[in-house]
């Protein structure tokens, strides 16, 4: 061992002794820091992973909506289904479901005493959704509706 190596070793021992005198060693401190950073990185990474997995990618279109018992819609009633932008028109012969999205350019039509009017471009429809006046070129879209085995009305958006 050379004289220089011997001096380095002595300084190192002295440094360790000083560190021990303060309650921890330099080696222990570095080890603690390394572990801390690895664990913290892991936690942050885990948080990012969870955020990624539970990310809400935005609105999705529901294709089937359970509207509850069909007995809740007696003949003569007109029921707005806001979540589907639709209206249920219950008649003696059955239930008619109309999309309130205007077949012209997609605005939501509003119900009036004599039918429906599009607030954007003025298309008008009768109370059953039939076209009265453009610029729409077709009647309001009829949505598929059925009663399931439990007696619930199921509105199909597709």
């Amino acid at each position, binding site marked *: 061992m050379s004289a220089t190596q011997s001096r380095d070793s002595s300084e190192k021992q002295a440094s360790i002794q000083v560190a021990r005198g303060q309650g921890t060693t330099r*080696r222990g401190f*570095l*080890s603690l*820091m*390394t572990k801390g*950073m*690895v664990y*913290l*990185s892991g936690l*942050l*990474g885990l948080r*990012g992973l969870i955020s990624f997995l539970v990310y*809400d*990618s*935005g*609105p999705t*279109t529901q294709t089937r909506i359970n509207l509850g018992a069909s007995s809740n819609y007696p003949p003569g009633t007109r029921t707005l289904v806001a979540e589907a*932008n639709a209206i249920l028109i219950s008649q003696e012969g059955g239930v008619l479901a109309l999309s309130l*999205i*205007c077949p*012209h*350019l*997609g*605005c*939501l039509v509003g119900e009036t005493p004599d039918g429906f009017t599009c*607030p*954007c*471009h*003025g298309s*008008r429809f009768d109370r059953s959704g039939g076209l*009265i*006046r*453009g*610029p729409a070129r077709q009647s309001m879209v009829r949505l598929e509706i059925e009663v399931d085995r439990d007696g619930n009305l199921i509105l199909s958006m597709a």
Partner: protein
Amino acid sequence: MVGLNSIATGLRRTALIPAVFLLLTIILAGWHNNRRPRAIALLPSLTNQPEYCLSCHQDLPEISRSHPFQAFGCVLCHGGERLSLEADLAHRSMRGGRNPSDLTVAQDSCGGSNCHTGEAAQERNHVQRVLTSVQATYAGAIANLRYSFGAQPDLTARMGIFAIRDEHIQTPTGLPGLEAFAPENETNPGIQAFAQNCLNCHLSAEPLPGEETSRLTGCAACHSLTAGDDLDQPLHSLTLKIPYTQCNTCHNRGNYDLRNMHFVPRSDKPQDRLHDYYQPIAQFVRCEWTLDCIDCHTRYEIMGDGDLHSNQREIRYIQCRTCHGTLDELPLTRTITDPEDLALRMSFLNPVIDLGGGDTVLVSSRGEPLWNTRRLADGSYELFGKASGQRFTFRAVKGSACQQNTAEQESRYCHECHAVER
């Protein structure tokens, strides 16, 4: 043993550095992610495709009642990358930058079936008609200048701001096409100076600096009200209520000095509408300085009739007699019976008048309804300002004390008695 300890110590030291880098990298990634706006998705009913423009642009007002964002979204008109939250990427493929109605992109932004082109009815092909209008082609001014400087033998237009062809000529003055005006091919210095100094009031031109001339290009030049505004501010509005001040951003700014081909801005500062009217030396009747331009001038006159014309005169046909008739004849009218009548549609879109079936409206010599008018039970007429909503009543000339020569029925003859001194 000493050697093994040294190796272990070395490994601990070398593990510390990657740990620091790992932590810093994760913190940086998190910081960068948090700088992005909170994602706000929109699912327009017309496209049914999610877009995230509202993440940054929630504060913009609805552009018009006819274009609600819940139905149209943003991308349908503006283009852009609908899923991006990075501003640069989201805006990279936008049409026309901030103005999707610029005529270079209006066909894609505003056109399309069910929108403003692609219809069988000419009256609904707005973008196609505007592209043929003299406001877009500037064909009249170019033809006049080229004729004046001997570059063409007559006043028939041959060139426009852009090249365009018309396969379906419907009027006697319609042209089959125009070439693009190319100043570099002109030899006369006067025409070159015109190209350099005077091409700033057509629909594709950037306006002259100044609040009086402040306007956008394309459809928005008229339908987005900018007169007197700072164009650097966000503007998200389209309207059918276009006041004369918007027209004045092009039509009432001053004159061109044909000796040196320079624009001379008007020097007066009018304090009232009478003196603000176009061309200080001319005289005008009450209608002209009381009403807004669009109260009388029709969509075909302003936005083109689908044909290419050589000048304004060929497309300007509204006269005093359109509303007032002549000594011999009442003005042309039409009683609304068709639920699809254009008058009903327009009065719905700009409800200054409550028109219905059975109402009688004035019509132009080309059959266009003046949908802001109505004949009253006593035989007089009412007109509602399209921008102001103000109601005016007026009578026909027939049966009045007017002594006008029946052979002289153009507006200029009416001005001889009815013009107002200024």
